[in-house]
């Protein structure tokens, strides 16, 4: 609606185009639009919705905000799908921040695992073993998440460099 006014079915169609793997029902989109209208982020006339200045500002704020921990896949993918080229450095920074946060979580998990495993030495009770197995599963989950974030950041950085190459500018998204 920041790009152009749209009906609820138009918004649903565009969301499905942007976020290919997700299916948005028109009914759910209509409900969300009514909520956004109540909050003053969009206004409507004859079933056509348009973003208000407040809504546009809120969208920009959301796009540039750091990610929650653990980073929500759906929210991050929505940011990637909806961001514009100029938003990329900010998004790259957010992904990097999320990596940092995940790494710190791994550090905490490792400390706990070390303690548990020292306690576990010579112990055969299932309860204690289960605790270490669960933490091992946690670690694998964080590893997968960090790998995904790193791959995502690599692709965003490549895209930013491509855009910079096209415009003839030379700045690093890491700067």
């Amino acid at each position, binding site marked *: 609606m920041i790009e152009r006014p749209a009906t609820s079915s138009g918004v649903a169609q565009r969301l499905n185009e942007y976020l290919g793997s997700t299916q948005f029902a028109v009914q759910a989109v209509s409900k969300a639009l009514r909520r956004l209208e109540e909050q003053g982020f969009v206004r409507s006339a004859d079933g056509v919705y348009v973003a208000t200045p407040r809504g546009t500002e809120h969208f920009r704020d959301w796009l540039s905000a750091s990610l*929650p921990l653990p980073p929500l896949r759906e929210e991050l993918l929505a940011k990637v799908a909806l961001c514009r080229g100029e938003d990329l450095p900010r998004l790259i*920074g957010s992904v990097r921040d999320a990596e*940092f946060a995940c*790494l*710190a979580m791994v550090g905490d998990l490792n400390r706990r695992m070390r303690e548990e495993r020292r306690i576990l030495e010579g112990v055969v009770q299932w309860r204690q073993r289960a605790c270490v197995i669960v933490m091992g599963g946690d670690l694998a989950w964080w590893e997968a998440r960090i790998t995904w974030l790193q791959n995502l950041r690599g692709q965003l950085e490549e895209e930013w460099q491509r855009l910079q190459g096209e415009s003839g500018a030379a700045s690093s998204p890491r700067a």
Partner: protein
Amino acid sequence: MGALLSLEGVGLHYQRGRRHVVEVLADATLEVLAGEVVCVWGQRGRGKTTLMRVAAGLEEPPVGRVSVDGSDVWELSDRVRSQLLARAVGWVTCAKPELDIPVLEYVAIPVKVALGRGSASRRAKEALARVGAGECEEQRWGSLSDGERALVALARALVRAPRLLVVDDLTAMLRCREADEVARLLAELARERELGVLASVSSMEETTWSDRMATISGGELLVPPASPRRGAGKVVEFPGGARSERVAGRGNGRGVSA
């Protein structure tokens, strides 16, 4: 306490073809203290081995500073640098040795000239025993299991009693339990000998026994702060219900050791 190893703003790139530049390390900054194990985790081909080679003084980076025991390695003369690295740094990798000789002899080689054959052999026996590979003394590399090779490589690095171990993906070929035992052994050695250990690993499970961990990706080394940063700024409501925090700056803590 000063750092045993310090990398400051290290950058390294390779030219691939005329126009393509591969940035292997970009502004990498890291410190390793005596008695601590720092693990660098990363996927294959992300620059871990290059980082390890730079840290061990085997490769000179065109940008940045590498210090071992407070001395800028690449400011030293070739002779002094060789002496410093031989004395202070143990390079551990599971590469196949060029000579097909018994393990005891292979492990003793680094100190054979300095100590003489008998003392070198005694030192090698001690190193092999410490890492739990005493039974491999008479065997040759080809007959060792992957786990034994890792231990022998570690013993060979320890024989010179270095202050810093730089370990390049030693456990990549090992099964989970063996890899864990090697990782734990490194942590024990760090404590008992006040060794600094910098190790690259491909699996996050191997970071369990490390004091700190970093990751490398796209040439960028990320060393996280001690605990997750929360509450860094304004909360932005996501209409769908999720919440995000707006961070005042970006790249906080990048390349800075915790």
